[in-house]
């Protein structure tokens, strides 16, 4: 069926090697898959050799939005899909901010980046125009935040644009380098920043303004109002806009699910000190929203610092915080000082690193150092739990890579552990560092089998909490439940809805909201679409070398009790057996 908004189906293909671009109409993809994940999987299948080296010009980055973008509230994510240099497998990362809106306002539904420039460049896309601009002077600049400030002055569409850029970590190909958007949002996971770095792509600016036609105006206004009210008033979204995701710190600690000191424990004695409540009282400066989302979950803290040696000379800086960075750079490292956590978050932003991977890597380094697997000859400094000043330096060293050890650590915790020992306590899942939930078997099995190895793939942590105090399901039933949830989430991420509003955009609501856009899909058809996208994504992942028989849990996960007690190895084995047979039947 034709889309009411024809411009959504315009896909911009950019070739960085030859500095050329072309636009192709892809109604076939957008009308079938609705956008986002569904469309990105198909384009990647067409454009990418699955065996390509992720850091070679042959890697391809696809960024896509969906039919709800700039049409309904909280459809605020931009999906990026690529081959991950961290896992060597399918990489998928989602970012909020203004990127999704800006892509649609610039007149495109998806952007495909291939090739590599011979000198640093940045892309400026607005009003359907694409410009390749020299970024040589921006390359090597100390802070990614400066890049944002510079481009803010140079580029059009203030207030209606997105400024995405990498930091030095991306330039130096750290395999968990991020792309930073609007200073406070990220394509964090799986090393998109390194892929950009390998392409010498320093930044991407998107902007514009336009009208998006709908098929049924009255129906649209009604559906909008309902979605808006849901986002704003639903109990499911309240926590995000009050304390933000940082609210999780205390409850997770209370049930014993907060990974602490490289998961040697799941309770942190300093939890209270780095809780959402504490952040709000001590340093919350402002709450802001992604474009077109009334929830305003982004929490920005301020730190005020006195310059040493100068009287009455202060500087105030702003840093956004969320649960995941607080876990990774707080409890996981034994850091209980608010100032320390904020400065570590700021440092990963300045350098352009993924906060979770960085924190888990530092935790592994600290334990390996304690156990004598590493010495100062490798680390150059003495890592110690809670010593955030030394961690600030180690993060720099990961980017500088002054010796073989840091060169390897820049490739990820798993790679470093393979060489230096300590794989049993290197908390990685398929090469990706773990998210902040040690809530029971479902969280960890979920990280392993989730197609982008993210806790958001299938929300295992949420299942663990649902079954607290109740009979835990058999491993086979648990895996079925995780996969079913992940299939449904393919619909949400194809519509690029933020997963925080999953309780608002239920199948019935989505079906109703599609109708005024001229798209008729029943709840069952939506669920079928989710299953199909899941299958397609799994197939693509397998073509890239994903092998379900190689999945393994780090031993540490089995040693440290979770809220459901010790996780039994046999339970995990049965779950993975079930997953393998499912995966085989689907592909």
């Amino acid at each position, binding site marked *: 069926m034709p889309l009411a908004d024809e411009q959504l189906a315009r896909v911009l293909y950019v070739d960085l090697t030859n500095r050329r671009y072309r636009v192709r109409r892809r109604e076939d993809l957008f009308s079938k898959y609705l956008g986002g994940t569904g469309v990105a999987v198909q384009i990647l299948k067409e454009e990418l050799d699955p065996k390509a080296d992720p850091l070679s010009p042959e890697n391809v980055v696809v960024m896509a939005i969906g039919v709800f973008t700039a049409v309904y509230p909280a459809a605020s994510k931009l999906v990026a899909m690529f081959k991950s240099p961290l896992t060597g497998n399918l990489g998928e990362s989602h970012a909020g901010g203004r990127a999704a809106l800006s892509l649609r306002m610039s007149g495109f539904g998806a952007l495909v980046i291939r090739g590599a420039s011979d000198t640093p460049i940045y892309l400026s896309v607005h009003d359907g125009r694409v410009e390749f601009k020299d970024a040589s002077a921006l390359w090597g600049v100390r802070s990614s935040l400066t890049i944002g400030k510079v481009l803010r002055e140079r580029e059009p569409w203030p207030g209606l644009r997105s400024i995405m850029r990498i930091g030095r970590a991306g330039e130096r190909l750290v395999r968990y380098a991020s792309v930073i958007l609007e200073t406070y949002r990220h394509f964090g996971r799986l090393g998109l920043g390194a892929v950009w770095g390998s392409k010498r792509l320093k930044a991407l600016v998107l902007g514009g*303004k336009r009208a998006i036609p709908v098929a049924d105006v009255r129906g649209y206004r009604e559906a909008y109002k309902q979605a808006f009210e849901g986002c704003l008033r639903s109990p499911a979204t309240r926590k995000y806009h009050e304390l933000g995701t940082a609210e999780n710190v205390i409850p997770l600690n209370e049930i014993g699910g907060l990974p602490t000191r490289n998961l040697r424990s799941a309770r942190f004695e300093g939890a209270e000190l780095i809780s959402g409540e504490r952040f709000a009282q001590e340093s919350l400066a402002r709450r802001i929203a992604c474009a077109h989302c009334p929830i305003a979950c982004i929490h920005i803290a301020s730190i005020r610092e006195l310059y040493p040696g100068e009287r009455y000379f202060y500087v105030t800086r702003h840093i956004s915080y969320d649960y995941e960075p607080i876990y990774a750079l707080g409890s996981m490292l034994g850091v209980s000082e608010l100032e320390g956590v904020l400065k570590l978050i700021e440092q990963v932003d300045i350098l352009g690193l993924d906060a979770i991977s960085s924190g888990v890597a530092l935790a592994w380094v600290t334990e390996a150092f304690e156990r004598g697997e590493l010495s100062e000859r490798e680390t150059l400094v003495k890592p110690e739990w809670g010593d955030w000043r030394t961690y600030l330096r180690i993060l720099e060293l990961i980017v500088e890579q002054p010796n073989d050890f840091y060169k390897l650590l820049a490739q990820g915790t798993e790679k470093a552990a393979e060489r230096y020992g300590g794989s049993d306590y290197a908390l990685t899942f398929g090469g990706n560092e773990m998210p902040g939930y040690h809530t029971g078997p479902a969280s960890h099995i979920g990280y392993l089998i989730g197609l982008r190895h993210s806790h958001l793939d299938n929300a295992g942590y949420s299942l663990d909490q649902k079954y607290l105090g109740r009979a835990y399901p058999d491993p086979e039933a648990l895996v079925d439940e995780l996969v079913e949830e992940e299939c449904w989430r393919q619909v949400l991420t194809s519509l690029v809805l933020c997963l925080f509003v999953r309780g608002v955009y239920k199948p019935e609501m989505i079906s109703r909201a599609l109708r005024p856009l001229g798209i008729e899909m029943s709840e069952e058809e939506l669920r079928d679409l989710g299953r199909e996208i899941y299958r397609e994504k799994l197939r693509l992942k397998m073509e890239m070398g994903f092998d379900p028989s190689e999945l393994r849990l780090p031993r540490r996960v089995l040693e440290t009790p979770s809220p459901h007690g010790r996780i039994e190895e046999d339970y995990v084995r049965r779950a993975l057996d079930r997953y393998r047979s499912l995966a085989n039947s689907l592909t």
Partner: protein
Amino acid sequence: MALTRRRLEVIDPDLCVGCMSCMFACSRRFGDSGLNYSAIRIRSVGGVERGFTVVVCRACDAPSCVKVCPTSALKLRGGGGVTLDSRLCIGCGYCVQACPFGAVFWDEVEGKPIICTHCGYCVDFCPYGVIKVM
């Protein structure tokens, strides 16, 4: 007898989270989605950490936009603000340049200005009480 003034007012921009819901609401009045028809603009004050500014027609008593309109397409509106007679508008854009607040926006589709009518539709979609019709 003086007409009752009815105008959109910015109560407290410090409460603004930058969600742009008001901008989408304004554009939606015309039927379409997107932002083309929006007569309100939220933008940061040089970085979101410093907060937002709400750019909207202030319903001036002696509006600069009316003064520069060469075809009288813009007229004073009883009760505050201005009205646009789009049949008279030649799309010169002088009004956009004249407004010191940057509150005359541009319709990229028609090539004509977008003028706030102070209808208040946006107010219902501001979750944090930043704007109000007075």
